[in-house]
């Protein structure tokens, strides 16, 4: 009886092994493959931080003292439009917002990106301060060209109008503490 049970157990074990072992091998192979596919250069917070520090220095060296202080203190830069009576707020990795400084009326959102076309599958985006500087250079160097390329939307499409109005209020308060005004230069 015992011998029969042992023989049956061995047979069942052998049959199970036939089924289970290939599955285990497959699972191990998939796991090894996943590990091989893992990117060699992963997210490196140190590298990102250093890139942002370099970008901040570059931005600071390009814009004027007030614009730099505005970005440092408030997190955005105001750029005056070429025409009369309007200006833009430049946020990192958010649409550019056009507004009327005197009334704080929001005019439009200009959605624009600076993608790296040299890589076939896209790439990491510019550091925050580089994105602000790219917008600043494109706006001050070729305002109409940038506006033409951007996707135009009504305020509120991507940027919360309440948040923008709060930022305009913060900007006004910030300028008062610096002894400035909201009028164009």
């Amino acid at each position, binding site marked *: 009886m015992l011998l029969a049970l042992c023989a049956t157990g061995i047979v069942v074990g052998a049959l199970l092994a036939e089924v289970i072992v290939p599955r285990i091998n497959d699972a191990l192979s998939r796991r090894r493959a996943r590990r091989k596919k893992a990117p060699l250069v992963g997210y490196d917070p140190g*590298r*990102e931080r*250093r*890139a*942002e520090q*370099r*970008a901040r*220095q*570059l931005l600071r*060296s*390009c*814009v*004027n003292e007030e*614009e730099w202080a505005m970005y440092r203190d408030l997190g955005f830069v105001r750029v005056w439009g070429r025409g009369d009576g309007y200006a833009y707020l430049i946020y990192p990795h958010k*649409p550019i917002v056009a507004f009327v400084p005197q009334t704080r009326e929001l005019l439009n959102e200009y*959605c*624009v*990106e*600076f*993608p*790296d*076309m*040299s890589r076939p599958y896209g*790439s*990491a*985006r*510019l*550091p925050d301060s*580089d994105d602000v*500087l*790219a917008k*600043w*250079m*494109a706006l*001050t*160097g*070729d305002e109409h*060209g*940038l506006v033409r*390329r*951007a*996707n135009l939307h009504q305020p509120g499409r*991507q940027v919360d109008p309440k948040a923008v109005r709060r930022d305009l209020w913060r900007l006004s308060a910030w300028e008062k503490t610096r002894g400035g005004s909201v009028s164009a*230069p």
Partner: protein
Amino acid sequence: MKPGHGEVLVAEGDVDVPEEERELIEAFRRQLDEGLWAAVPKTTNNGRREASMVKSFDEIPRDADRVIFFPRAAGGAR
């Protein structure tokens, strides 16, 4: 400017030295061929800071201390 890296020095030299100027011109063309835009930060007569977009080496002021290359703008999220 390079996504994921920030500022990268492409080339440097003195435009008054012919050999170095040639190298700067080649580096400039290479960047534009790769699809980048070029801008020169400057101070205007009224003291305002702004950038000049340049499309050829000749457009760069001789006294410019740098040219910044950055990816071309494209319409963002629809």
